């Protein structure tokens, strides 16, 4: 069975600094997708960034980028120039390549931004 592990329950970063959230996953599939979701206090699930496993290039979205290491099954999220609005719970997630397959979430990392 596929699993997603986030080993950092909480992290803190100074405003304007860079922080990296870690995620590892386990799968025997070759076709899959990886995601980072942000959940602010409103509890809305917001997609931050998505990576297709067949793409070697790391995905980037403005201040958010990933370091995708397929052989190591590692998928970390880097947030540059941290802002107060980045404070939230961040979930790493995995989905197989099949159309109707579910997303599996890690336990999350709570990110605090220090002013």
């Amino acid at each position, binding site marked *: 069975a596929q699993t997603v592990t986030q080993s950092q329950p909480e992290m803190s970063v100074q405003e304007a600094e860079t922080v990296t959230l870690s995620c590892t996953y386990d799968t025997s599939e070759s076709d899959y997708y990886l995601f980072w979701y942000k959940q602010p206090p409103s509890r*809305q*699930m917001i997609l931050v960034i998505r990576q297709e496993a067949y793409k070697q290039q790391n995905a980037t979205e403005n201040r958010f980028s990933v370091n995708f290491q397929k052989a190591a099954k590692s998928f970390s999220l880097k947030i540059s120039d941290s802002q107060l609005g980045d404070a939230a719970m961040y979930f790493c997630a995995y989905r197989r390549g099949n159309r*109707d397959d579910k*997303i599996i979430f890690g*336990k999350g990392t709570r990110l605090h931004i220090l002013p």
Partner: protein
Amino acid sequence: EPEVTQTPSHQVTQMGQEVILRCVPISNHLYFYWYRQILGQKVEFLVSFYNNEISEKSEIFDDQFSVERPDGSNFTLKIRSTKLEDSAMYFCASIGYATNEKLFFGSGTQLSVL
């Protein structure tokens, strides 16, 4: 951007009562999901639904739970006899035809069982 709509945003019920949580997925989406999140815990998969039938369900989704798409637009989750441990945020989600389309989540229904 299109939205998945969930109603109500909060639902309070007595233990043993039936509740129905409602979702309106994005109109051209084909795959629908329910997830739940107990406060402070991770988001857990409950059930997926495609072509008017359940594709997959988790061990959480026991006989007390059911889903249906009664009219081609709404997607409902029914809990027949609620238990205290059913208190959670319930998220509906949908995705379109292409596998790399993102999963759109609704804003959730917070269910409190007293």
